[in-house]
């Protein structure tokens, strides 16, 4: 662990990612104490005002403070992103390991189910799941998690099949290592690189999918903000009050960028070959 931190210090891009993700996490965790105004309070005399000393990022069509809403939205977006990717990635990792390692009828069963899930457009599938479970934030996360499972399963399975053919797996078997240990000690550490990259990519996808679902009224419910929901609400006023769109969009972009930087440097850090 010490070693990893020492190596991270040398990796400038990685540090930018860590700091960025750290800041967004701070925003998400301590949002209510950081924002100057209540995120749902409407200041009717200040509707659609540009950025000022009182309202740092301006106000929206109801006179709500954009900065406070962005801060509050960080919590929702991160929460949804992390939990839903967590669900999708863990399910996908386990399914991918099993399918790739055994390559028998279980593989066929898992992959055909994944193919069925793959066949639906992401949003349609998420919509269906949310419609069945009921529209609220928890169900949105479950839905996004399920939508992302097939991508993870395929990524991990492909990597497992490549690793499985390596001689060191035969070597472990020849030594008499038990199957579950072969999977955990020899196969899974060697499929982490594509998995981590896929996770950071999925994180941005999850934030965007949540935005789309919120727009359709199936994610977070108004007046509570999330970045995606804010972006969608801003459409009608984009020309007269661009700040309503710019700030949530900026935060989405920067957050996703930082997560991707962190993902890249994590992948390198976890690879002993790049020491």
């Amino acid at each position: 662990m010490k070693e990893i931190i020492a190596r991270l210090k040398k990796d400038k891009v990685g540090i930018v990612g860590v700091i960025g993700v750290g800041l967004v996490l701070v925003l998400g965790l301590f949002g209510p104490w950081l924002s100057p105004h209540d995120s749902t309070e409407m200041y009717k005399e200040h509707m659609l005002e540009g950025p000022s000393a009182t309202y740092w990022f301006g106000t929206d069509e109801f006179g709500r403070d954009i900065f406070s809403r962005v801060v509050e939205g960080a919590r929702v977006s991160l929460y949804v992103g992390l939990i839903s990717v967590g669900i999708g990635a863990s399910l996908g990792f386990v399914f991918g390991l099993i399918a790739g390692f055994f390559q028998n009828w279980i593989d066929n069963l898992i992959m055909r189910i994944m193919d069925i899930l793959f066949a639906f457009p992401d949003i349609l599938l998420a919509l269906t799941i949310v419609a069945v479970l009921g529209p609220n934030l928890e169900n949105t996360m479950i839905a996004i998690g399920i939508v992302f499972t097939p991508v993870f399963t395929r990524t991990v399975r492909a990597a497992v099949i490549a690793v499985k053919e390596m001689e060191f797996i035969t070597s472990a078997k020849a030594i008499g290592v038990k199957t579950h240990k072969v999977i955990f000690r020899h196969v899974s550490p060697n499929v982490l690189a594509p998995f981590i990259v896929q996770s950071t990519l999925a994180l941005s996808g999850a934030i965007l999918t949540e935005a789309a679902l919120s727009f359709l009224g199936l994610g977070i419910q108004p007046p509570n903000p999330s970045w995606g929901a804010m972006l969608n609400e801003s459409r009608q006023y984009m020309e007269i009050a661009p700040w309503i769109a710019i700030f949530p969009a900026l935060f989405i972009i920067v957050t996703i960028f930082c997560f991707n930087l962190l993902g890249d440097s994590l992948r390198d850090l976890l690879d002993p070959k790049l020491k």
Partner: protein
Amino acid sequence: MSETLLKVEALEKFFPVKAGIFKRTKGYVKAVNDVSFEVKAKETLSLVGESGCGKSTLGRSILRILEPTGGKVLFNDKNILDYSKQDLRKMRRDMQLVFQDPYSSLNPRMTVRELVSEPLYTHFSISKMEADQRVDEILEKVGLPLEHSKRYPHQFSGGQRQRISIARALVLKPKLVVADEPVSALDVSIQAQILKLLVDLQEEFDLTYLFISHDLNVVKHISDRVGVMYLGKIMELADTEALYEEPLHPYTKALLSAVPTSDPLVKKERIILKGDVPSPTDPPSGCPFHQRCPLAEEKCQNVLPEFVQVRPKHWVACHLVEQ
């Protein structure tokens, strides 16, 4: 050198060839076809042959890394093909494999110490201190500095990696080591070092080697006996000296005539074989070698020669060799 450690009887490994949309079996690749031989305790038996003759498959079938399709493998007089998975796992501590390619046979995410201690933790419930001690011991024996034990495989050269592989195989103090082309991937200068290491370790640990190689020069220096394989079968098996000085099978003669010598002035008569090795999916009738054999007779085309002892400790499968 009398006790038999390993006895292989009529071992077969056929790989099914599947074709068509229903994956029906259309035939078999007869990679190892009716092979029998014995390995005595503490000796080195080498198997040589061209690429694709089934020598690696044979080595792996003996260890049940590939499941043989027929025959018997008697290790200490017990047929290991009857063993359950649990028994087989326990038995693996006595039979180890050294791989050809030291670049892919070591898990890139494990340090040397983790790699070498893994067999110990797999087979014994021992304390970390005890394991560390045994790892240190074996690392010293194979000539790896102890301060390298925290490094990862990619930080080593091919020869050093092969030392790690050997340490990993020998840390359990096995009885039999199947070495599957252990030096083929290495530079010639390193080959000599690793071969010397293998010979030294054999003396120290009373090891028995089944040494698989395609390099007749390598084999000559380390083997007590040599078997020549062709198309999944052993064609000739004899003491090293007898085989090199007085080969009986036409295939062995052809192979030996192709070995380069270090003296450029020595003119050897080379026996050039015609054609290619036939496909093991559809081996020729009779003697598998008859299509390429310069001496083939009519009998060779129809009757499979038996693998018989024609001289003391010298077995050949050829119709043309007089008993």
